């Protein structure tokens, strides 16, 4: 069919209402009209280009409609993770030869970061933790079932108001545990195994108590990281094809679920999604929409960093805390830190990582970064932001919260924190690189060991793809690219969001660039020091 005819189809679909018939209910319904003011303006910056809809391809469309799709994505990961669990307990105790530890820490953890930066929540669509728990919750592997298992409770508001910050907290806790036991080192395979079991158990518990993917949205340790770093990704996610159709849609099957698909498990409405932040790429809305009005869209990289009109305070704070964490992980390999941690260990009796310096470093880094942003904002921004009020960035947290009392602070904190996303993301990726380059080949003897061929004597056991100096070079290159991406994004963000609120536009622009540069350079220098310390 030609494009012209395609157009006619959507027209026809939209007009396909009903025959005139006796409908007594209609006579009594008098819904208030919707507020559609500025709707096109509101979304134009974040709507992906129409021609970047991959689901236009008939083959892709058929695959996305298939209910088995997500099951097939989850299945291989599910198998691997059960193997990890079993091998962790029953397999060899040598972490470098145990398939469970090698695949988890040398391959998977690096791939997740690459997927994040390129796609967004790709991992979420195939995640074996949520996947497994969701099978139980829905009592099915792929079918659309009506009766779910579990209590279907709503997540309590006092917690939900923190948005993705809860996920950051659980990431910090998990990372601490992981460092404490040196699980990712990797340490003993059974530790990895227990960690995986722990996460699956938590996921199952949350899926059975709460509705939809409450776990993924609020609790999952990786969610905030994937969400924020994923903003760099070039997959916009599932979005509305024609917003007017959504606005006039009477059923909202994408939210409530229909015969073909579940209601969005991630609390995202394709009709108003303005970033890829909370689309788990599960394709349920695509299946459910009776008007065929959902498409899978690509977007230029960094769109979800630059373009969203509503910048979320929880994401801004998450970025700062996650930045603190990755810097902590670099700092902790330095000699200065080692002596500090030893001293604290002697004082408190808790070995590395001592919770005091762990939290301390993270919070201090986050605070310093935040303070720099605010200092620049207050120095070079407008003193009086009353006129700015109308487009005041709104929080994920309710009006009563501390942050919303200081809209002025938010006017600078939110855009600049968003600008930091690429450099923070790059640093996370860079930090995973040594494990990949040095150890990923040990997967070969680890697999070989199943057939009686792998052993610590295998040349791959210790063979690294790259030597240390080369690795540092790659790391710095990655950070460099991230920094450049950040600067580019910052420039765009600045033009739209910060220019109107700056007193001295040049000075504020330069300070925001300087903060990004400082982060990039700081992280690079730390890689030097880390390896020097080794």
């Amino acid at each position, binding site marked *: *069919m030609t494009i012209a*005819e395609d157009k*006619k*189809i959507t027209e026809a*679909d939209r007009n*396909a209402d*009903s*025959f*005139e*018939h*006796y*409908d*007594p*209910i209609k*006579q*009594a*319904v008098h*819904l*208030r009209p*919707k507020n559609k003011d*500025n709707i096109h303006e*509101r979304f134009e910056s974040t709507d992906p280009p129409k021609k970047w809809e991959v689901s236009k391809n*008939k*083959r892709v*469309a*058929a695959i996305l*409609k298939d209910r088995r799709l997500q099951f097939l994505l989850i299945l291989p990961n599910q198998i691997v993770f059960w193997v990890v669990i079993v091998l962790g307990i029953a397999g060899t105790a040598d972490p470098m030869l145990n398939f469970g530890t090698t695949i988890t820490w040398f391959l998977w953890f690096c791939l997740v970061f690459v997927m994040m930066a390129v796609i967004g929540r790709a991992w979420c669509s195939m995640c074996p933790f949520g996947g497994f728990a969701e099978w139980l919750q829905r009592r099915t592997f792929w079918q659309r079932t*009506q*009766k779910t298992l579990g209590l279907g409770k*709503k997540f309590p508001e006092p917690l*939900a*108001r923190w*948005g993705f910050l809860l996920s950051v907290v659980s990431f910090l806790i998990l990372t601490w545990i992981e460092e404490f036991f040196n699980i990712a080192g990797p340490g003993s395979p059974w530790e990895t195994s227990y960690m995986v079991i722990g996460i699956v158990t938590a996921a199952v518990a949350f899926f059975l108590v709460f509705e939809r993917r409450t776990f993924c*949205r609020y609790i999952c340790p990786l969610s905030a990281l994937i969400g924020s770093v994923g903003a760099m990704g070039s997959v916009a996610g599932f979005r509305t094809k024609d917003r007017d159709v959504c606005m006039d849609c*009477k*059923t*909202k099957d994408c*939210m409530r679920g*229909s*015969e*073909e698909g579940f*209601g969005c498990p991630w*609390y995202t*409405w394709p*009709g*108003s999604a*303005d970033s890829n932040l909370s689309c788990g790429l599960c394709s349920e809305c695509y299946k459910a929409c*009776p*008007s*065929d009005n959902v498409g899978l869209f690509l977007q230029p990289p960094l769109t979800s960093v630059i373009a969203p*009109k*509503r910048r979320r305070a*929880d994401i801004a704070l998450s970025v700062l805390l996650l930045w603190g964490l990755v810097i902590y992980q670099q700092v902790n390999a330095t000699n200065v830190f080692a002596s500090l941690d030893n001293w604290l260990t002697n004082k408190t009796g808790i070995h590395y990582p001592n919770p005091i310096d762990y939290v301390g470093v993270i919070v201090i880094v986050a605070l310093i970064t935040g303070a720099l942003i605010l200092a620049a904002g207050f120095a070079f921004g407008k003193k009086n932001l009353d006129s700015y009020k109308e*487009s*005041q*960035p*709104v929080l*994920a*947290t*309710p009006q009563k919260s501390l942050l919303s009392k200081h809209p002025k602070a938010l006017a600078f904190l939110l855009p600049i924190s968003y600008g930091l996303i690429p450099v923070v993301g790059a640093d996370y990726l860079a930090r995973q690189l040594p494990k990949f380059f040095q150890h990923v080949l040990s997967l070969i003897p680890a697999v070989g060991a199943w057939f009686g061929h792998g052993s610590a004597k295998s040349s791959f056991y210790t063979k690294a793809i790259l030597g240390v100096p080369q690795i540092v070079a790659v790391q710095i290159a990655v950070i460099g690219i991230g920094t450049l991406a950040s600067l580019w994004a910052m420039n765009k963000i600045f033009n739209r969001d910060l220019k109107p609120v700056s007193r001295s536009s040049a000075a504020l622009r330069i300070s925001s660039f300087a903060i990004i540069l400082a982060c990039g350079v700081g992280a690079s220098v730390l890689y030097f020091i880390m390896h020097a310390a080794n």
Partner: protein
Amino acid sequence: MTITNDPKTNSNTQSFPNVTVFSDRCAGCEECLVRCPTQAIEMDNFSWTITINNELCVGCMQCTRTCPFSAIKIESEDLSKTRVQLSIHHPKDLLLDRSETRRGITNWTDALAEASRCLNCPDPTCVRGCPTHNNIPGFIAAIRDGNLDQAQEILSNTTVLPDVCSRVCDQALQCEGSCTWSLAGHEPVAIGALERFITENSNVAPIATKSDKGKGLEVAIIGAGPAGASAASELVANGATVTVFEKNSEPGGLMRTAIPEFTLPQNVSQRVWENLKAAGVKFEFGKEIQTAQISELKNKFDAIIMAVGAQAPLKLPVPGSDLEGIVDAVAFLEKADNLLREKKTIEDLYPEIFKRSGNQSKSESSKPMILVLGAGNTAMDVARISRRLGANATCVDWMSQQFAPVRPDELVEARDEGVDIRFNTTVSSFVGEKYVTSAKLSLTRQEVATKLPTVIKENAIDLKVDLVVMAMGFRLDKQLTDTFTMLPYRKKTPDMIDRVWQASGITAVPSVEWARGQSVGKLSIARENARLKAGLPVADNVWVVGDALIGPSTVVEAMAHGKHAAVSVLEHVRPREGDKTSGKTKTNVLVIYDTRSGNTRDVATNLLSDLSQDLYSTVVTPITKVNYNDVVASDIIVLGTWIEGMVLANVKPAKPTLRWLRSIDTFGNKPVIVFVTYGVNPKGSLDLLEKEFAQRHAKVLLKKAIKGGKAQAQLPEFKKQVKQIFNQYFEKHN
């Protein structure tokens, strides 16, 4: 008249509701905003989330029930204000008393106060709960304006029996149970009492001519009950000639025979028939039409609506049940009602029985004993009328009280009048020579509503009885079910609830206190599905409505069915002779498609693109969005689907198509065109579809398989074939 104490504008209570919007997950879909009755919800276009002004909010929680993402929390005291107290009239001397026991609102002050409790909800759940979908906020607003004539007019759009329904409906399971206040856990607006107030304080208007859509149509209605009355009214108002056949000598059906005067006064139940006679409806009394005579009747009439009710009383098959002195409730009630009117007593009813027993209605203890089997509403009527005729009455029901289908107020009234009602009790045998003299009662236990009770103690009680009345319910006449095998339709709620209904919030509360713990949403949807089915004929030009369609139900449901069937007759039936196009404007073509990658949709949307817009009205809809009402309203259906399978094995029409087809009981003999788009080979898919349609009373006129990739090349030929069928089938246009 203006109202000052409207809760919308008068939230001067000190404590406003506590409202929280989870702005983290509010998606700005505005489902809540469009439904909030007080406009407390506003959209923040920048953050694309909503905000709620708690000073406007009245705590009805409509928004929380409607939000798909549970993003709103409302904590509020009951701000619904006090519901009007309705009085129950307790006759001083029950004997031979015919006065109405339930009283309505007696003065304007109460009426206005009650009317002001209504929030005029934008998506009124009460309207969905009402089986005939009266415009409740509409008529309540008219009361607030002091304009009862307007209120009558609003009612007349949907009901011909407002005076009857407002008295006999179990509002707790219908409109009032579904009122937004009830769903929020508070006392609902007294909708029934307000409806009654209108009919008691203004005249129900005579049947007015609405259109001449039905000119030239001759329609037979069999049965002069509520379903027949409403069908007749709709038809005659649109210019059709209507003849009502009734086996009794008077109209009214169960409304007259089974509901006693102290619940429904005679002047009220007769009013509608006077109006129908005045509007020119012909009545043939004393004419029982057997199902077998239908085809004969078809020669004389263009359409036939069967509103014959569920006539076969259920019997208790225990030893002794064939003794004399055991009668069925309807026969009893009909006689008893007449007796009461003639001021006679129970001894006059079955003289031979009471002469023999010697019991006389003098002192309380020596009064004759009537045992009523069952404790439903009919049983209550039997027992209460027995009391008025000077007898003692005992009702027994094997169910537990909490699960019994009886209005709680009816139960209280009956007990107040001295009726002995025993739940968890059943009869195991009747004893007597020729006449029944005693009954052996056993005790039962029932723990859940869905399980039948079990006997826990056999023959525990021996009760002396003079007369036994079976009031355990009815079922459809065997002739009817043998002829129309799909009857009775069971009222069902599908697993997947219609999202438009879901959006209204009516299904959000699984157990509504005011509705005795039942789900009004499920009840309403089940009723609605049955009402829609009443619009489809069961055979060519034959409709079945009311109890005859779904088994024993209610006056209001029967009435709603009658109207829907009549609308359908007017829409689809043309006079046998004369101008085939009279009245009818356009032919309705319903195109339904199921698609995965878009091929089928492309064909479906282009297939009818050059049909004349003047003659045809087309609706093209994906299978997931088909509205049953459109199926009813269509003159022809085009169904397109794709082929699913593993090329060689298990090749079938797509699953959603089959699922949808199998969810429909009947297509009422409508013509159908089916097509499939396939990749390799559709195999037997078209035949399967034809078979499925045939089983559901539809005639497949054309089957077509189109190769998916070559759809465009094959389209012109298919178009031509379809056009031919249209020309031939709807020749009246050419």
